[in-house]
């Protein structure tokens, strides 16, 4: 240790070693990485399930699996992707790693609770896996658990419901932790409106997490009670109301879409100013549109239920609100584009992913308006149009936001650079594969191809084949991207503290960050996106 010329400076990755030092760490950065690795594993599992489904659909009729297996696959693909990957996703990974640093704190408000929520999360995740392998049938209800089928199906629905309940609890604890952190832990001078936009988006997200998740919690408990004790809350035979279930389910699960997408919007709000070397355009508008999305997003759940039996008045009210919630999203898009306008745009991989985010999210958003309109929704309800729209929002939005985030903060987290060349190649494959996979589903959906079917009318063969080929391309792109990141974790060039000339606080400390983040508590004296400040070289 005396040889200081070759010794690597101590940082949060190497100040202690061994598996237990990770599993017992209350350091927010290490917990974030625990989430990153668990989420990546589950994402790969669910992506493979997705690929298998697309192989099944390569030709009409049964190709590699039975209808029942297919039902189980789309259910578990959905449960893993939604509850284990996408909902925790950005907030738990990059929120944990970066939120305290970006607001100038040493850690989150409750470090032990933070570690505890990872354990709760991993328990829920394994329960989800257990529902696959436990004695009995793989759950086949779809991730939405609609009653009465979920009350009657003979598969392992209770285990899957419990998994979702437990995962919801982890989500609540993370949200709670972030709200308190943002309220109480900001560095001196870091007023609310000097806070960078990623923390702002996490703040809006956290409120949805703690206010909406309990509703799904109790709803899932009611379905469990329905199956276990024959209490018929939702079973018409016992006087229950299945539509009531749908209301309660979507009261959570629509806001949950914003839990997924808001942090991604926060990520790109960081990336655009950095790679344009220009202050963000309309800081206040982005902040308030985040809060507006969080608020109005609560009131639009009924647009999932136009065909489920609601009054006409309820339907048009929900339709109107759905159109309203598109406004703040559009405001953000205009602000991001205006940020680039006139800036010195440097098209590095993070920016490329951020721009693809806007492109894909906009397609998802516009088709969302098609679905929010009463007449067109009834035409395309329960078709692959929905699947396409949903994946453009969740994968194209949150997923590409996540990829943007990992490419943006990778040098900060690991102190190494990935290969830009491979990042561009992987992006090209990924983006192409994505559109080939999902875009045909819009067209087939309009033509009447129902979703959740393992078989189809032969007239859809061409479209399904194109889509399945897209799935293969997409998987290759994912492999290329992940390999690039994994390989350069140890082999990459040493990254400087501030490779992108960013101005937010995380770029003012070494890469990787030291264990305690800051040697001395930073004092903030200016707005978050001021370039040509002495900080930037």
């Amino acid at each position: 240790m005396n040889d200081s010329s070759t010794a690597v400076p101590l940082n949060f990755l190497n100040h202690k070693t061994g598996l237990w030092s990770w599993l017992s760490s209350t350091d927010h950065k290490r917990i974030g990485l625990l989430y990153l690795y668990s989420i990546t594993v589950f994402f790969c599992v669910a992506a493979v399930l997705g690929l298998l489904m697309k192989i099944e659909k390569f030709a009409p009729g049964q190709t590699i699996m039975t209808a029942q297996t297919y039902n189980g696959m789309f259910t578990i693909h959905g449960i893993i992707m939604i509850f284990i990957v996408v909902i925790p996703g950005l907030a738990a990974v990059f929120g944990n790693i970066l939120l305290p640093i970006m607001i100038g704190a040493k850690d989150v408000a409750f470090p032990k609770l933070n570690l505890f929520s990872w354990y709760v999360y991993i328990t829920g995740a394994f329960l989800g896996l257990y529902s696959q392998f436990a004695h009995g049938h793989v759950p086949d209800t779809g991730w939405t658990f609609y009653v009465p089928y979920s009350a009657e199906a003979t598969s392992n629905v209770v285990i899957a419901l419990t998994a979702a309940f437990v995962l919801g609890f982890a989500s609540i604890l993370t949200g709670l932790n972030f709200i308190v952190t943002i309220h109480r832990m900001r560095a001196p001078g870091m007023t609310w409106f000097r806070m960078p936009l990623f923390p702002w988006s996490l703040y809006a997200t956290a409120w949805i997490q703690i206010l909406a998740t309990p509703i799904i919690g109790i709803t899932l408990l009611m379905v469990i009670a329905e199956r276990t004790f024959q209490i018929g809350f939702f079973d018409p035979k016992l006087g229950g109301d299945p539509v009531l279930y749908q209301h309660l389910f979507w009261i959570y699960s629509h806001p949950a879409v914003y839990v997924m997408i808001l942090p991604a919007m926060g990520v790109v709000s960081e990336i655009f100013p950095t790679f344009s070397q220009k202050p963000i355009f309309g800081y206040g508008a982005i902040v308030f549109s985040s809060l507006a999305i969080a608020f109005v997003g609560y009131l639009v759940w009924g647009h999932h239920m136009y065909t489920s039996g609601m009054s006409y008045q309820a339907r048009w009210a929900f339709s109107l609100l759905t159109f309203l919630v598109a406004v703040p999203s559009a405001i953000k898009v205009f602000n991001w584009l205006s940020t680039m306008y006139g800036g010195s745009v440097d098209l590095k991989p993070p920016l490329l992913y951020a721009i693809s985010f806007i492109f894909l999210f906009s397609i998802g958003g516009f088709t969302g308006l098609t679905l929010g309109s009463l007449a067109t929704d009834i035409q395309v309800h329960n078709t692959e149009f929905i699947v396409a729209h949903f994946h453009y929002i969740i994968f194209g939005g949150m997923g590409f936001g996540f990829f943007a985030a990992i490419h943006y903060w990778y040098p900060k987290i690991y102190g190494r650079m990935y290969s830009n060349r491979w990042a561009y190649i992987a992006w090209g494959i990924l983006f192409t594969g994505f559109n080939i996979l999902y875009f045909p589903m819009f067209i087939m959906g309009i033509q009447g191809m129902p979703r959740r079917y393992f078989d189809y009318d032969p007239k859809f063969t061409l479209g399904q084949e194109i889509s399945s080929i897209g799935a293969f391309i997409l998987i290759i792109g994912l492999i290329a991207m992940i390999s690039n990141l994994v390989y350069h974790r140890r082999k990459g060039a040493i990254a400087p503290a501030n490779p992108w000339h960013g101005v937010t606080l995380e770029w003012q400390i070494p890469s990787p960050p030291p264990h305690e983040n800051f040697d001395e508590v930073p004092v903030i004296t200016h707005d978050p996106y001021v370039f040509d400040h002495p900080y930037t070289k």
Partner: protein
Amino acid sequence: MSTTEHSDFIDSDTGKLGMWLFLFTELFLFGGLFIVYAVMRSKYSADFHHAALELNAFIGATNTVVLLVSSMTVAMSLTAIQRKQSNRAMGLIFITLILAGVFMVNKYFEWGHKIGLHLYPGSDVMKTLPHGEIMFFGLYFMMTGLHALHVIIGGILLTIVMFKIKSGRINQEHYLLHENGALYWHLVDLIWIFLFPLLYLIT
């Protein structure tokens, strides 16, 4: 040894803010059941009226008084710890726990009585009842059951607080856990104050 934990010390305001947020999530958890109750009550008001007569308002009222008094004793214990009266604080928490026990015993007899009459979900008698009455008893068991679970959790929390007072880890300066335990206990009380009229009094 280098610093392994970032900070073991959580200041009181931060801790309380976290607890208040958690209590909000608990309210929303029960809120879901209240919504179902409201929908079903409006759908089956006559059946709910009939089924509610089956509940014993006397036991319900007793339990309400028991919980209200226990809320008072837990608040008094907090005042005691702030005044450096550890023994008194422990004694008051002990009384709170006794009252929680009384509540649970009453609940046990109440549930036992219903189950004795075969008024439990899935029983033969239940299947012969009208839909609204099945729903009422289903909600009764779910709501009071979930509440009883919270009584148990609150009881465990207060037991921990009691032992920490004994070991001196909760004292005049540091009583965050005590305060949060008391807040949780008030929540348990608060929810019961809504359950009691909804299930026992409105007929």
